[in-house]
């Protein structure tokens, strides 16, 4: 301890003694003592003020960190390539438009609410507009109910309130006329897509060509550029001053984990080496491996969250392959997909034939005959049943599409990443797998999880699951463990067990973060100081 600190301590002890030895008998002595205490208080208050000022100044100096301007620039670049990737990837136009989510949510309306339904309906209208198709209520021609509802919804949307009283009243009115109105809307969106499918495909093809031409890149180049940028961004963020500080501020990092003793203990536990006895070259090599292990484990942990999706796809694939094997000798003229497509076409024709009958004006405008009314009612009933059949056919088609694509796009050389990306491309499929995995999941949670999964797929720098093939028989955890054991890391199968994996990830992360902090402007002592003062001054 410095002499100055010792002197202050001594002074405090002396002053304490002065107070305790001064006489307290008699009013004169008491008054003298009070005066001494007051004078002393004033001196120490001045000192305290000086100390607090110094503390605050140092805190402000330490925590004044410039925003790294490179990070938002890279993020912009990543988004540019992400948009390019989303417009040029192999998903169908239906998924590119986001209609997979719309139709899932419209179909699950009974679990949701009217506001959400309206939001999805307007979203789909806007998506069609983006691809050059301006829809009006007349396009909702599957039934008079769908049209009547969309007339009011579109009018109110134009006025800026899709949840107005008029919309609610219209829904109520139409619902009591036909309680399956939402199924009609579902079928109608799908019908509109079918009607304009070739035009929409053309739009995306032209857009993809235009984007790639503009960038002078191939689809693979776009993917590669994006991956490189994500890697670069992650690397910068790891040692970025503001990023490090924010992690401590938000509580994502705890300063107690970064005390030197803790670091040394975990370092030895993971590497079997005394960090203080390592040469710079040795330490750099080990730290590099810890950095890679940290990246791999973070990816692995995230993958575990979504593993059920991969398992679901692989299980479906196995069943499809088994069926294909069992039926390989049977001569099949048309696939199930083709048959369902034909069924849809047939149902659409029948529905519109009935619609034209229903819509035909009666002979006498005011004197509609009872027999004609009856005829109309029968036609409406038949049409409504056909709409429900069409809905079922569409849902069947979705399954057929997924099955067909699983067989077309995935084979033994596909990676776990390919499978996860595949699953994440189909909202309805993903949602069903989530429900299978957790029966209590809500639609809102499905939406949030779907976004998280898609963000994980779109904005990660993959180093593990993109290399491991679905035909690999070794468990992913063993693959990671074996690699780092070869590099001298003290890992065992037990570390990767459900109860232990979090602890391993935490320890590796502490070492890696500690090493990264050393590369920033902060020392651990600085961060300790910052966190202490933050708490003290309630900053």
């Amino acid at each position, binding site marked *: 301890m*410095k002499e100055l*600190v010792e002197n202050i301590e001594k002074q405090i002890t002396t*002053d*304490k003694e002065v107070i305790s030895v001064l006489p307290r008998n008699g009013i004169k002595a008491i008054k003298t003592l009070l005066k001494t205490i007051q004078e002393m*208080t004033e001196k*120490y208050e001045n000192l305290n003020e000086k*100390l607090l000022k110094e503390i605050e100044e*140092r805190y402000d100096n330490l925590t004044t960190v410039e925003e790294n301007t490179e990070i938002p620039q890279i993020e912009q670049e990543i988004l540019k390539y992400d948009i390019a990737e989303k417009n040029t990837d192999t998903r169908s136009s239906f998924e590119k438009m986001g209609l997979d989510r719309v139709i899932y949510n419209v179909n699950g309306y009974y679990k949701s609410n009217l506001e959400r339904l309206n939001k999805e309906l307007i979203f789909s209208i806007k998506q069609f507009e983006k691809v050059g198709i301006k829809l009006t209520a007349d396009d909702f021609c599957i039934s008079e109910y769908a049209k009547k509802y969309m007339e009011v919804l579109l009018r109110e949307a134009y006025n800026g309130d899709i949840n107005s009283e008029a919309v609610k009243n219209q829904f109520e009115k139409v619902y009591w006329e036909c309680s399956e109105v939402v199924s009609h809307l579902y079928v109608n969106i799908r019908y509109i897509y079918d009607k304009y499918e070739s035009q929409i495909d053309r739009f995306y093809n032209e857009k993809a060509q235009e984007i790639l031409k503009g960038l002078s890149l191939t689809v693979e180049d776009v993917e590669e550029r994006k991956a490189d940028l994500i890697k670069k961004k992650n690397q910068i963020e790891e040692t970025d001053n503001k990023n490090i500080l924010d992690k401590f501020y938000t509580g994502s990092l705890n300063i107690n984990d970064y005390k030197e003793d803790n670091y040394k203990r975990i370092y030895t536990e993971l590497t079997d080496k005394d960090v203080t006895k390592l040469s710079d070259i040795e330490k750099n090599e080990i730290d590099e491996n810890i950095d890679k292990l940290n990246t791999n484990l973070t990816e692995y942990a995230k993958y575990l969250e979504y593993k059920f999706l991969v398992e679901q796809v692989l299980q479906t694939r196995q069943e499809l392959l088994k069926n294909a094997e069992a039926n390989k000798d049977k001569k099949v003229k048309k696939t199930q997909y083709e048959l369902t497509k034909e069924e849809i076409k047939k149902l659409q024709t029948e529905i519109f034939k009935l619609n034209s009958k229903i819509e035909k004006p009666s002979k006498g405008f005011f004197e509609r005959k009872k027999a004609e009314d009856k005829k109309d009612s029968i036609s409406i009933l038949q049409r409504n049943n056909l709409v429900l059949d069409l809905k079922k056919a569409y849902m069947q088609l979705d399954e057929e599409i997924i099955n067909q694509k699983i067989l077309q796009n995935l084979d033994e050389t596909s990676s776990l990443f390919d499978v996860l990306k595949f699953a994440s491309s189909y909202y309805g499929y993903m949602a069903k797998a989530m429900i299978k995995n957790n029966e209590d999941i809500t639609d809102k949670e499905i939406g949030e999880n779907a976004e998280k999964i898609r963000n994980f797929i779109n904005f990660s720098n993959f180093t593990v699951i993109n290399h491991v093939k679905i035909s690999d028989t070794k468990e992913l955890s063993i693959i990671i463990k074996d690699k780092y054991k070869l590099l001298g890391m003290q890992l065992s199968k037990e570390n990767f067990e459900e109860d232990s994996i979090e602890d391993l990830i935490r320890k590796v992360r502490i070492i890696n973060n500690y090493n990264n902090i050393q590369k920033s402007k902060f020392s651990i002592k600085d961060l*300790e100081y910052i966190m202490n003062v933050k708490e003290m001054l309630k900053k």
Partner: protein
Amino acid sequence: MELKNIKTSNLENDELLDTQKQVESFLKFLNGEYETVKKLEEENS
């Protein structure tokens, strides 16, 4: 030692915080003493 002449800038971060804690604690002590002696004054007057 004159308290007003203390150069706080010469203290290390942890020393600065420790010293401030000690000063703050001593100020609490002084405050307590003042209250006690003030009561004593009232009793004697």
